[in-house]
């Protein structure tokens, strides 16, 4: 259970106060630093009509502005209809992600779960890095929210490239969408390639066991896989940024698992939550909990010798170290939390 040691909170607070610009703890109101960063990012030449159109507040009555918006929207639509866009080899469609998918996820981030994002200064602005987080929530909304956080609120507006389980790509409709939004398979080759290319890679080593854990096991981190992520980080010497997500466990409090239905649909679990299937289709509406995503101090893997990746003991050591770090961050955040919903 979340038990905090007395010296941890001040340290945490000190770090937060010391390194970040005044990042307010109140998540709903925009911290002063945030707007400026967003503006700065939008000033980049190819982004003027782009992702952040909700930041600018145009005078609604201006006809010139309306023309621009409509013309831009039509041109965008036409570009999509004629295939004049490009995707990377993993299948990520940045345009679709920024202009169609993120605008859908953004209201969830800002208004529904009111995500409070801390420690963004720990995520490097460029170069490869591995963000390692705790997984929860029955449906992996936590990955989506982490993506929004890093694209919208990180000064460099980084795209998080998530490593997903093969189940994600097995599902019709969802699979192609996952790829287009930047997911790829949690496979050694894919992770190596992304990190070597200097991408920000997100991994949830608990996998589906983490997403599908019971409510009574909430915020208890599961096993961190076979340490594949640590191996890749050691090989590419990419820093590991621990990430703790609090609030996602309670969106679908899972009280049961119907094993035979899971087998029938070839799913890792078939959840019974407080809402589902009791409320029928309404049961898929997640609860409006209050979220907090915190990025911790990066773990520098370049201090390990290059041959460490082949030393399985070292790999497990690093895996455990990351897991303990994330668990510690989760516990602290839980201790700080006053209410699940506010």
């Amino acid at each position, binding site marked *: 259970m979340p038990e905090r040691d007395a010296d941890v909170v001040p340290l945490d607070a000190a770090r937060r106060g010391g390194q970040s610009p005044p990042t307010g703890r109140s998540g709903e109101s925009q911290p002063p630093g945030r707007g400026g960063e967003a503006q700065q990012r939008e000033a*980049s*030449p*190819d*982004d*003027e*009509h*782009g992702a952040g159109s909700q930041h600018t507040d145009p005078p609604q009555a201006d006809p*010139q502005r309306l*023309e*621009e918006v*409509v*013309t*831009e929207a*039509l*041109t*965008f639509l*036409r*570009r*999509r*209809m*004629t*295939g*004049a*866009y*490009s*995707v*990377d*080899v*993993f*299948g*990520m469609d*940045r*345009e679709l992600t920024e202009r169609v998918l993120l605008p859908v996820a953004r209201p969830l981030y800002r208004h529904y779960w009111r995500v409070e994002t801390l420690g963004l200064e720990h995520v490097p*602005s*460029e170069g490869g890095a591995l963000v390692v987080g705790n997984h929860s929530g029955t449906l992996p909304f936590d990955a989506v929210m982490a993506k929004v956080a890093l*694209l919208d609120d990180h000064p*460099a*507006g*980084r*795209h998080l490239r998530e490593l997903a389980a*093969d*189940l994600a*790509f097995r*599902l*019709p409709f969802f*699979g*192609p969408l996952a790829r*287009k939004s930047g997911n*790829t*398979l949690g*496979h*050694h*080759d*894919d992770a190596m*390639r*992304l990190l070597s*290319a*200097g*991408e*920000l890679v997100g991994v949830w080593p608990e996998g589906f066991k983490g997403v599908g854990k019971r409510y009574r096991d909430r915020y208890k981190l599961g096993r961190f896989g076979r340490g594949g992520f640590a191996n890749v980080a050691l090989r590419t010497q990419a820093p590991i940024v621990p990430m703790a997500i609090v609030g996602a466990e309670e969106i679908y409090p899972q009280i049961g698992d119907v094993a035979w239905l899971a087998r029938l649909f070839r799913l890792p679990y078939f959840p019974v939550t407080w809402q589902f299937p009791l409320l029928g289709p309404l049961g898929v509406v997640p609860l409006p909990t209050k979220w907090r995503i915190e990025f911790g101090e990066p773990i520098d893997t370049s201090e390990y010798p290059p041959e460490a990746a082949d030393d399985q003991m070292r790999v497990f050591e690093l895996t455990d170290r990351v897991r303990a770090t994330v668990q510690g961050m989760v516990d602290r955040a839980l201790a700080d939390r006053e209410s699940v919903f506010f």
Partner: protein
Amino acid sequence: MPQTDGRRVLVTGVSGQLAGQLASRLEDDERVDHVIGVDLREPGPELARTGFVRADLREAGMADVLEEAGIDTVVHTDLVTSPAQAGGRTPMRERNVIATMQLLAAVQRARRVRRLVVRSSTAVYGGAPTAPALLAEDAEPPTRPRGPASEDIAEVERCVAAFVRRRDDVAVSVLRFAELVGPTVESPLTRLFALPVVPTLLGHDPRLQLCHEADAADVACAMALDDRPGTYNVAGPGVVYLSQALRLAGKPGVPVPPGMAASTAGLTHGAAAVGGLARRRVPAGLARRGAAGVARRGTAAAGLARRGTAADLARRGVEAAGRVREAAEADFTLDQVELLSHSRVANIDRLRDHAGLHPRFPTREAFEDFLASGRVTPTVDAERLAAWQARLARLAGWEAVERPSGSDSPPDDSGPPPPGATPGHSGTRSTPSGPRPTSTEEH
């Protein structure tokens, strides 16, 4: 030119597009003394200096040809990719597998042969959600391929692997080409895009990786002339989604439920028979009269009973049957179902780093070059869309704003922002500003 050093190359399947281009490149190369083409059909007239041998590879006899011509390099490109092309599954398998076995047996005997290049395909990888985004040559195939062509290709590769063990003094290169496209390539894939509407799998949108025919011929030529033993993936850099390819081609996709698609091969062949019957056997006039009669009686109440409408409907029915027939001729086998359901994107690092060969056409450009050949008539026209937008803007009285974005030519319509100089195929690299990939400016 030192006569003694000249290479003597034998190319199988020489009347095929790939082999034809390869042979003409070999003819032009000064290191090559003599090119011999083998096939059942005579190649086109453009191969002036290539000696043609009409032979059936399935039968023994190649050993003599190899011996008499003093061949030192064999390029095996004869590959049948659809049962329709060979006249059935069994002849197809024979032309792919038995022919390869016969050829390899002959090559094993031919002491002068030092180099063997075999055409394969990335279809050997099958495709599975458990496979990484890019398939490397030495990766374990995630699934056994199920389509007829991919089955055969896997078998051919096994034969070649066995040959490598028997004759280790021969430098063997296996070239796994991605789907070939280009101005002259005829394949199930190109025929698929020639249909007025293209069947896709509901809920699936694979990444396609393509290889331009010119690149394929260049790579095969380089492999034939220099020792680069090993297995290589050959493809253009980058990918396009199937949905994107359809949009580029201006073709609406028709999603088919996957369970149904597995049996689509049978379905389309059945429908083909019906379609053929409707078109040829049943006199069109009779069909029209019959349908008109039915319509007169049946739909009088609905107020639709104009003879013209009924006749029109009948004509459309016959036409639709013809279309289905076309679809069947596009040869929708399990190979295509595999291609349409799973991505199989190969890693071309080895080709670039080990062999030093760099395909010139990225996947997207290769596809656009195929479209530019004029064999695909867009159902949805990009220029018309642009015109519509312009007209809409004029209606609203927005000439001033509309002009800069509305009047640009379709390939360059990346909208108002200046080209961000982000080549489509280098998407794995991120630039700090968070790049918005712009369109096709890397021509």
